[in-house]
């Protein structure tokens, strides 16, 4: 296939996959959850931490949100939530769009098409990635708007540190979205959406262990969270450009893997 033919096929597959994803139940449920819960959690948790109403086991966890510029805290919390939520949302989406057709046999219908299976898989992965990244962007936009409204009501200001936190939250969310791409390969290998969700949960648990033993700053699945300050300012400062680049490389590597899997797919 020529380069022009490949681009045409990708364009065709993207048109079909965008429509399919727009209509999917998973997308319809996950989108409002992701874009509404994040700003509400960011502003709500900050307000709760500063209210003094929380004591017991939850108090130390919220202590970091109890001081400092409120708007910067809002965006910092949003980044921390998105660092996990974007991975989970993207992972669930990958489980649904790659695992379900293989589980119910619909993937067999992609054989013998003028649009190659690998191209369909690439388009599907790009749509999931773009959707997750778009949700991250909208969630941060809503958080900025809500935070600006809340701080203005309290006679505060939405300053440069808050914008910097918004930028980092956006970066962390998009990185986390990219970390979900390899779960398309997991879904293809296991041919099971549930097994993929299990693997996703397993990776999140593994990340906790890696961070606990101090190896998180170079572990891609820990990098977005650490970078947004989940492990404290020192851990955030320990995340360098190399770790961020390594984390960003996970998405294209995962995409290349799933495209190769779909090209070689058999026994469907």
């Amino acid at each position, binding site marked *: 296939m020529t380069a022009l033919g490949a681009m045409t096929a990708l364009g065709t597959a993207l048109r079909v996959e965008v429509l*399919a994803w727009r209509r999917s139940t998973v997308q319809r449920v996950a989108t409002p959850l992701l874009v509404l819960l994040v700003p509400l959690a960011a502003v709500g948790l900050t307000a709760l931490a500063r209210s003094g109403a929380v004591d017991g086991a939850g108090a130390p966890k919220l202590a970091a949100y109890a001081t400092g510029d409120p708007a910067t805290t809002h965006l910092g919390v949003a980044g921390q939530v998105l660092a996990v939520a974007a991975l989970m949302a993207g992972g669930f989406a990958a489980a649904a769009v790659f695992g379900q057709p293989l589980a119910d046999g619909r993937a*067999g*219908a992609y*054989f*013998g098409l003028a649009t190659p299976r690998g191209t369909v898989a690439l388009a599907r992965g790009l749509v999931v990635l773009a959707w997750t990244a778009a949700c991250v962007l909208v969630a941060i936009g809503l958080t900025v708007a809500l935070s600006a409204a809340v701080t203005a009501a309290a006679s505060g200001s939405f300053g440069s540190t808050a914008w910097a936190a918004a930028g980092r939250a956006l970066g962390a969310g998009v990185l986390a979205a990219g970390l979900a791409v390899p779960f398309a390969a997991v879904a293809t290998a296991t041919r099971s959406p549930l097994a993929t969700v299990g693997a996703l949960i397993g990776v999140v648990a593994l990340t906790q262990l890696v961070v606990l033993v101090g190896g998180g700053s170079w572990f891609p699945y820990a990098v977005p969270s650490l970078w947004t300050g989940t492990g404290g300012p020192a851990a955030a400062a320990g995340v360098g450009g190399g770790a961020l680049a390594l984390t960003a490389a996970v998405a294209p590597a995962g995409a290349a893997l799933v495209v190769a899997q779909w090209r070689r797919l058999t026994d469907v």
Partner: protein
Amino acid sequence: MTTPALLLDAVRRSFGTRPALDGLSLKVDPGEVVAMIGLNGAGKTTALRVLTGRLRPASGTARVLQRDPARLDVATARRVGNVVGAPLVDPALTVAENLRAAALLNGVPRAQVTAAGAAAVGRLDLAAWAGARARDLSAGNAQRLGVACATVHDPAALVLDEPTSALDPRGVVLVRELVRERARAGAAVLVSSHHLDEVARVADRVAVVHAGRVVGELDPRGADIERRFFAMVLAADTPGSGPDAPAGAGGRAPRGRRAA
């Protein structure tokens, strides 16, 4: 001599220790409708999976329009349609959307996608459900949609696995007319079915598949196809019976056997 548009030659495939295809050979020429009939587990669907590239044979040859079905180039793939198992239908999309998606994925030029979808809706009488989601369709209408999606690009080689299993008599007639129309246009059509009466009406040739191979052919125009089918299967199961034995029961040795 006509080059077959669909060809399986001495194909063998096992699942674990259980042989599913035991040297199955079959060919379909352009303009011809061939029906595969057989008991459950005879190997019909496995043969169709091999022919559509979904399953690699352990040995033997599969060809669709002279190409390996597992590695179809784009130009060839544009001329192929199939429904084997689950069709190219997204349950979340409407009938019209599914047909547009199928047309696009099957290589119909964008300017012609709407017309191709409308034509497919008309052929299979789906207009009343054009705006309905596929998941809300009855089993019969869903099956008609699957066939419509597989034929929206007017393929020159068409493989259909039990395309009328869920259809009411009207749907059966629609699919029969579609199959015959494709054949009149020069397409090679291979259909598997359990509906012997329907097979007799739609097929030019009937291949009887049993124990993973074609054990003979039946004349679809002859009387009492069901009796002849069972006689052929029984003869194939009888020790010492060769593939020529069923001829006396109203059948003949398979034309596609060792087709190369």
